């Protein structure tokens, strides 16, 4: 095992890795920008090096600064976490050349899977299903043949496209010709290029992914799936394992397929193969993430497999002692990402100082976070405050536990999506597992608070106003002593809400 590992990351994932290292008896080295001097990962690590200004481009993304910190600290290995340099094959390559162990796959595997076209090709070669469609641009005649073959509905998409322009959904054969014409015309206007390609349109797609783990000796196992369909603006919000949508047969097949892709690039460490799942249970390769995922805890909760610890063990040369049959899912786990954002204002980030924090606890509850009373949520980094993860014997139990845990959460100073998450846990469609990537858009009613709590909140506000007046009046009072309204009476005038 390594003596010392540098963690080229910040926030909750840096803390997650520090915890894994502490359990393994490995010393940790933190790096931090000016904005992170007061961050917990710095105080929790055994060593800490400053690497520059707050902007990631000037600190966490600067390869030379990370390499310099590795050399100064004498760390033998580097864990990239997620984001930042985690999928930068050039960085992994420099580490390899410098003789520093990169805790993750080889730079070659990162390079291959990082390029979407290459990744698709690898998937195709290993007989992994891809979303049916044309291979690149097509003529009018080819287009219609392919559309017929892959079956309607289909999408016509501008090859040079983006932003929805030159894109047409075609549901019936009779509409194809005119839609194709319009798409080409739009594409010509928007991009000066009328070439289009054809793709099967997936209705109500679900996002399901397979966690895989490989060692340096050719063994690759999968740790089953995670369903991450509840998203806003392609950002995952709620994840779970197992998926409520797939059968045991599909689970097995997806796992096998994922292992096949990973083996094709001699994959080492933890990785994720992302799939789109349609309403009939067909799944299609989307991409591979060659790093630890934000949502890895749900897999840890149901399998008992400590992914982060095993990444480190594998990087230090340990063999995976399990076979696929040793692994199984027990119960159900859910993760809610708590963001500093305002669901009512289109999930606008809400940076600021956390003036007060109470976090949930109890059986089956795990809160992976890096925040504290007084923590400053800066605009420089991702506004995720915490990952709240729960385990339950069954999905319904996990949902109720999440709901109860969210009730315990209190954050003052910044806006959060906690209320939205809580209402989602009580939504009938969500409870029935009827989720897809359009879930949040379809449920705007979950965004604002229900108004039934306005009145008690109002009473609390009035009591607080009254309390602060009292505190000024009674200056002899000790700072933490309390006043009592016991026996006093209260009245509220009819507000506009009754």
């Amino acid at each position, binding site marked *: 095992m390594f003596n010392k590992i540098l963690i080229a990351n910040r926030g909750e994932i840096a803390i997650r890795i520090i915890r894994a290292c502490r359990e393994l008896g490995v010393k940790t080295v933190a790096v931090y920008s000016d904005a992170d001097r007061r961050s917990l990962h710095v105080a929790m690590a055994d060593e800490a090096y400053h690497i520059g200004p707050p902007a990631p481009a000037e600190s966490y993304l600067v390869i030379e600064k990370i390499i310099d910190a590795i050399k100064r600290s004498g760390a033998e290995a580097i864990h990239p976490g997620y984001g930042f340099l985690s999928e930068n094959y050039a960085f992994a390559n420099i580490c390899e050349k410098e003789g520093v162990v990169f805790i993750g796959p080889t730079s070659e595997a990162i390079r291959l899977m990082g390029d979407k076209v290459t990744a698709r090709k690898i998937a195709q070669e290993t007989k992994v299903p891809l979303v049916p469609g044309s291979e690149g641009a097509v003529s009018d005649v080819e287009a219609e043949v392919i559309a017929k073959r892959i079956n309607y509905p289909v999408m016509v998409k501008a090859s040079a496209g983006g932003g929805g322009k030159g894109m047409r959904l075609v549901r019936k054969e009779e509409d194809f010709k005119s839609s194709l014409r319009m798409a080409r015309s739009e594409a010509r206007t928007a991009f000066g290029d009328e070439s289009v390609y054809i793709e099967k349109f997936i209705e109500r797609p679900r996002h399901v992914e397979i966690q895989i783990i490989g060692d340096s000796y050719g063994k690759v196992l999968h740790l089953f799936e995670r369903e991450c369909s509840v998203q806003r603006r392609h950002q995952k919000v709620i994840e779970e394992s197992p998926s409520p949508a797939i059968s045991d047969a599909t689970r097995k097949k997806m796992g096998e397929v994922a292992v096949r892709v990973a083996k094709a690039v001699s994959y080492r460490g933890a990785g994720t193969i992302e799939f789109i799942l349609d309403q009939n249970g067909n799944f299609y390769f989307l991409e591979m993430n060659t790093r630890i995922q934000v949502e890895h805890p749900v897999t840890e909760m149901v399998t008992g497999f400590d992914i982060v610890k095993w990444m480190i063990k594998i990087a230090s040369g340990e063999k995976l002692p399990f076979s696929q049959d040793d692994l199984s899912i027990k119960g159900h786990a859910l993760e809610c990402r708590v963001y500093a954002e305002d669901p009512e204002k289109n999930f606008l980030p809400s940076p*600021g100082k956390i*003036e007060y924090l109470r976090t949930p606890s109890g059986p089956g509850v795990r809160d992976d976070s890096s925040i504290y009373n007084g923590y400053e949520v800066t*605009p420089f980094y991702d506004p995720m405050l915490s990952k709240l993860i729960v385990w339950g014997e069954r999905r319904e139990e996990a949902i109720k536990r999440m709901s109860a845990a969210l*009730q315990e959460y209190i954050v003052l100073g910044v806006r959060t999506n906690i209320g939205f998450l809580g209402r989602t846990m009580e939504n009938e469609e969500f409870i029935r597992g009827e989720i897809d990537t359009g879930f949040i858009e379809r449920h705007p009613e979950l965004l604002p608070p229900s108004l039934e709590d*306005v009145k008690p909140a109002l009473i609390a506000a009035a009591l607080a106003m*009254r309390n602060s007046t009292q505190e000024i009046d009674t200056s002899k009072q000790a700072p933490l002593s309390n006043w009592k309204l016991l026996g*006093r*009476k*209260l009245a509220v005038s009819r507000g506009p*809400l009754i």
Partner: protein
Amino acid sequence: MMYTFKFQGDTYKINLEEEGEKTEVEISASGDSTKPDFSSGKSIPIEFQKIDESFYSIIVDGRSIGVGILKKGKKVEVFLGGDLYEFESISDREREKAKGVISGVQEIKSPMPSRVVKILKSNEDVVKEGEGIIVIEAMKMESELKSPIEGKVKEVKVKEGDAVESGTVLVMISSE
């Protein structure tokens, strides 16, 4: 004593009175035991206890509420059931003032530390209420700030690329 709060455009009044005084009462015990029902008319005692820095316990006739409260000047943030309620306390004088019509010059301020990405309007441009004026970027996300009134752009006080603090005045719009 009467407290007045603004919340999402509405004005709420709440009266807290001492025991023994004659009070107009509107809180009562009701069927639902979780939350007090604040609509019927029985006089009931309230207990308010600070637990730690910002966590309070309120007991209303046996019913218990644990709530996060933060008072910043005239603003009171209340965190209850996963949601943050931002109330603005209004003194009597301010309520008088609020009755006068809004006019004159309105400022568009940066809601958070951010960078100016794009300025959509120039000086003297006529703008409608709700029309996009300026685009800022923070936390890797862009937001368009809109004009609160119909009027004319009086002054653009920043340029594209500027880094601005929370509260910085970006553009001034005149109602005339």
